[in-house]
């Protein structure tokens, strides 16, 4: 599973992208965040306030209960501020 980070999540975690293999118990976005937050202090900091973290699965916005599977591209980022 490819995981991407943008904006301050990328800065806190220190990488823009990582390839991970979460355990079988990770079935949705919320579960994936639990798993990722435990990987490093940077990850923990990035996911400390989940209310300000948005997610896209395979480039579509995804809610915390959206399923994630091996092979998915999952991205985490703050609320968008373009325009």
């Amino acid at each position, binding site marked *: 599973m490819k995981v991407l980070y943008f904006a301050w999540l990328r800065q806190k975690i220190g990488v823009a992208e990582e390839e991970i293999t979460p355990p079988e118990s990770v079935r949705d976005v919320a579960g994936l965040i639990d798993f990722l937050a435990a990987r490093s202090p940077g990850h923990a900091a990035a996911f400390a306030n989940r209310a300000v973290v948005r997610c896209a699965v395979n480039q579509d916005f995804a809610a915390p209960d959206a399923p994630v599977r091996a092979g998915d591209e999952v991205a985490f980022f703050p609320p*968008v*501020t373009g325009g």
Partner: protein
Amino acid sequence: MARVVVQEAPFDVGAELAALTAGRADVGGIGLFVGTVRDTAQGRPITAMTLEHYPGMTERALAAIVAEAQARWPLAGCTVIHRVGRLTPGEGIVLVAAASAHRQAALEATAFLIDWLKTKAPFWKHEEFAEGGGQWVEARAEDDRAASRWAG
């Protein structure tokens, strides 16, 4: 007909408007919005703003927003150009434009395009303060309200 572009280079508003209506004499009105870099953020002078985006998803999101505008209004064409990279105050960040036989359609589609882009396209702004340091721009509740006017 739609033109959707993500680029580092500046855009030329006159050239984009000409391209939008080229060969179309059934256009009665063109609405356009250009967003520009301000020189302050919450009263603090800024020297630059960097636009980051999510390549791949950005193009998908912009194409979906444009398709939605075309489904809602009878448009002869529309254009969305969003810049990325480092920009300085006064520079254009985004251009959206919609051409239609009818004025209200062109104006409403223009407002719709920028309102949805602000809340549904994966761009993030980082501001550099003149006094040093920087910050990521926070999303505004006002933008969510503007986007929700269009429901869907």
